[in-house]
Structures are given as C-alpha cells and as structure tokens.
C-alpha cells in the first residue's frame, strides 16, 4: 500500500483528468440540446400543447415547408429553400476547385518533393500562413479579386472560389499527412514490382491515404458551411432562388447571422436554420464516410 499522500495525489490527478472532457462534452451537449429544443419549438404547432399524432403531422409539414419555401418578411416567415440551394451550389463550386488543387498539391509535396527541400518548405510555410488568415480578409480579397477585378460581381461563383482559397490549406495539410502516413515499404514494394511512379501514387498510395484526405475534406466542408464573413462580401445576401452560378445567393450561415443580428423577431427562425445547418453537417459527414468505405478497397487495419 503506497503512503496516504501519494494515494491522494494520484486520485486528485485522475479527477483532474476526468474534469476536462466532462466540461468539454458538457458544453457541446448543452449547445446541441439548446439548438434542438429551440429549433423544434419553432416547428411545433402553436395551438397544440400535448403530444398528439396530428401535432406531429403538422410539425413534419412545417419542416418540409421550411426546407422548400422562399423566405418571407426578411426570413421571419416562410422557409430556407433558396438559401439551401445557394449553400449547396457555393459548396459544390468550392469543393470542385479545392479538392483537385489540394490533392495535387499534397501529392506533389509528399511524393515528388523531398521533405527538406526549399521549395517544399516554402509551399508548406505559405499554406500555414494562409490557414491562419482571418476569414474577413479572405472576404475582402475575394471581393476585390473575384467580384471586381475578374468582374464576377456578387455571385455564387465568386463566393465558392473565395471559400476554395480558404479551405485549400486545410485540405492540403490533411491530405499530405495522409500520404506521408503510408509506410515507405509500400513504395519500395510497388517500385520493385515495376509500378510506374504515377500508378504507384494513384493505385497504391492514394487509396491508403484516403482516411487522411477524408478528414481534410470533412474539416473543409465544416469550415465552408460555417463561413459568414468571407461570403457576405462575395456571394452576397440575396435570398431569392438563384438562376445561375453568376447570381448572388445567400448561404445558410449568412442567413442565420442576418436573422439574429438584423431582423427583429428573427431569433426563432434563426434557431430553426441553425438546426438545419447542424443536421446538414452531420449528414455530409456520414455521406463522406459512406462514400469512402463503399468505393475504396477494404482495409482491415485501422
């Protein structure tokens, strides 16, 4: 039996270690519960207090209406249909530009440039700086470069491209880590089997790096969906249904910001929109996992 003082120290240490995660997950659960409660209050029919079948049907109808209808009275009434469409388009533009660029850069950094080379270090350093730039700066840059200099005006295209610049560093660093995590022996084995460099990278390294790439992708999507500052100046806040990528479109986080800051009585629909945003994030995360596990060779080690 160790002396009393040591036992107490060890118990205090255990307790201290437990407290931190409890606090962190406590805040998360509080936030989630608040969002769920306030969000569903918005959808719950006001004339019904007891839980009845008809009330649930009413609520489902209200949710469907909210997801499809145009906003009315600055968003106090109506729904978020056009806003979801704009958000989806902005995200699609962002990812279809950032993903190939990011994967290519990561591949270059990990497979074709030695880790200590001056070029590799310069690229990595600039990506790190880019990752630390506040999003409002990206917004101003996007406005000056895409909207004005390239003449795209306030548009979904300009917003998506600005977001692509923002998520690029996240994607590249995560994908590069993924590539580097593939053991060197796999490269030697493939080379010894006469694989060309390109098929070594595409057939052997890329599938094994997929979890890292996926992590980067999810981080990137999360950051893109949550972005407000960079989008206000680039994709604008027109809440009509966009007709093309050159139309202005309001992203959902911009919508939430607008409702809660600028619209009196907008708190309740803001909560409802935030709930939609969180559900969207969760769905996208699961979809990404599903895609990877479905289309890549099965790995037993993880």
């Amino acid at each position, binding site marked *: 039996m160790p002396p009393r003082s040591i036992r107490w120290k060890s118990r205090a240490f255990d307790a201290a270690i437990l407290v931190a995660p409890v606090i962190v997950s406590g805040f998360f659960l509080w936030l989630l519960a608040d969002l769920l409660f306030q969000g569903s209050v918005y959808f719950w029919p006001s004339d019904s207090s007891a839980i009845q079948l008809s009330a649930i049907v009413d609520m489902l109808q209200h949710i469907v209406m909210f997801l499809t209808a145009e906003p009315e009275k600055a968003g106090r009434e109506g729904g978020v249909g056009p806003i979801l469409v704009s958000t989806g388009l902005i995200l699609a533009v962002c990812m279809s530009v950032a993903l190939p660029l990011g994967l290519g850069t990561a591949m270059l950094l990990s497979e074709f440039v030695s880790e200590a080379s001056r070029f590799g270090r310069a690229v990595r350093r600039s990506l790190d700086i880019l990752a630390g730039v506040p999003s409002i700066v990206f917004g101003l840059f996007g406005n000056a470069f895409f909207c004005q200099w390239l003449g795209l005006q306030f548009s979904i295209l300009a917003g998506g491209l600005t977001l692509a610049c923002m998520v690029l560093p996240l994607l590249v660093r995560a994908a590069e880590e993924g590539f580097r995590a593939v053991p060197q022996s796999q490269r030697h084995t493939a*080379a*010894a089997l006469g694989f060309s460099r390109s098929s070594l990278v595409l057939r052997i390294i890329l599938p094994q790096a997929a979890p890292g790439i996926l992590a980067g992708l999810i981080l990137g999507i999360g950051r893109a969906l949550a972005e407000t500052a960079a989008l206000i100046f680039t994709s604008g806040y027109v809440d009509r249904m966009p007709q093309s990528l050159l139309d202005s479109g309001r992203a959902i986080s911009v919508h939430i910001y607008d409702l809660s800051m600028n619209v009196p009585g907008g708190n309740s629909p803001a909560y409802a929109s935030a709930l939609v945003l969180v559900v969207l994030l969760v769905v996208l995360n699961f979809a990404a996992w599903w895609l990877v596990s479905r289309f890549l060779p099965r790995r037993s080690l993880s």
Partner: protein
Amino acid sequence: MIICPMNETPPTPSAPDLAVEQLSIRYGKHTAVHEVTWHVEPGQIAAVIGPSGCGKSSFLTSLNRLTDLVPRCEVTGHIRVGELDVRAPQTDVIHLRRQVGMIFQRPNPFPTSVFHNLALPLREHGMRDKREIESLAESTLRDVGLWEEVKDRLHRSALLLSGGQQQRLCLARALVLRPAVLLLDEPCSALDPLSAGVVEELIGRLKRCYTIVIVTHNLAQAQRLADQVALFWTTEQGGQLIEQGPAESLFAAPQHELTAAYLAGRVG
C-alpha cells in the same frame, strides 16, 4: 519467361546468370559496398551472408536499381542480368524490375484483398482480361502452396493472413509477373519457425527455374539452400566481399580467416 510448374519436372532452365563487377555503393560520404565482384550461375541459389551493416541489403537493392529511390545514393560499377545491362542509361527500369522480383524482410502485402494483391501488378503491366488474371492468380497461389488456404477468402483483406501466409502471398505477387531472377532480403527472419520452414522449403523448390540471390543471417539456412555463398564484411573501405565460392567448400573449408571465425561463431 515461363514459370516452373513446380509439381512437374522443370523445363529447360531459362534463368539468366548474374554478373557484378567492381560494384560500389555510397550514401553521401558513407561507403556501404566497396568494389564487389561476383558471378552467379543461372538457376542457382546464391546466398549473401555476413554481420549486420556489412552492405548485404544495399548490394541486393542495387541489383534491381531500387537504390535509385534512395536520395544521395550513388552506385558505380557494372551489373549484368543475362543480356541486360542493369545500370545502362537506355535500360528501362520498369522492364528490369519486372525481370528481377524482390521479397523483403517484413511481409508487406498491399492493404487490399488477397486477389487484388496479385491483380494489381498484372493490371499495371497491361493485362486486362479478367479471366486470364483470375487463372494466373490461381495457378500462382497454387505454386506457393497458398491456394487451399485462401481460396475461400480471396476477396478478404490480405492483412488477415498469418505472417507466413503473407510472406508466401508476397512471393506469389512477385512470381505472378514471371520474373527470371528473385532477390530475397532475409525472407524468413520476421517469421515464426514453422512458417519460416514452409517459406524456406518453397524457396528451395524455386531453384533452377529462377536465379535467386538471398540475403540471410541464418547460416544454417544458407547451408541448406545455397549453391554459392558470398561473405560480406565491413572493412575500413566499407562493406566488402571477402570470400565467395560453392557452398559446400566454403562451409567445409573456408580460406579466409575471418570466414572461418564467422562460421564458427567467434566473430560477427
């Protein structure tokens, strides 16, 4: 190249000889291998023995130019595999590596299914016909004695196999490309004794169909398998070949005093 159907009598040996002249390998300022000259007869098993760090593995990886992948590694001298001048600038390294297969110390199957481990290299070298790939995969798995063990789980992960099975799969993955030469870098040393025995017996059966160079720490294994043996030793200049010859005479009557001491377990 025709594979030896291992259960039948071998056809006329088509394995090439292997000649190394004045081969030196340097990593920056460090000399790993110093002026090695050696000749391996066609269809024989040649064992490279010696203490750790004497340049055995460097020597082996220079034979299929895997040393190209190591930054700051510099190779000088001549290497010839049959008619092929390995280090000549016009030599296609992919063609070379298809001729000269390699097995590493740790079994390292690709983290995909058993079947894909064989199909990937075949597809890489231009085979598209699914039936042909399947039949080649099956016959090669039979050759390494793995077919009965894996035929029901061809499409499950290769990483679920035991160490010995993984190493035989790696051997099959090299053999499926029909090489003429096999380089084995301590192929049994990471395996348990039983699996090591199975792999060793398999290597013994590959003799005459392939020219085999095997690096091993295990003197008894070298004695059981090899036709020719070379002893590498670290001298002031770097790793050098200090004695070579037919296995029987080298083990029975070593000429160099270091060889005698090493074989007796007094040094190294």
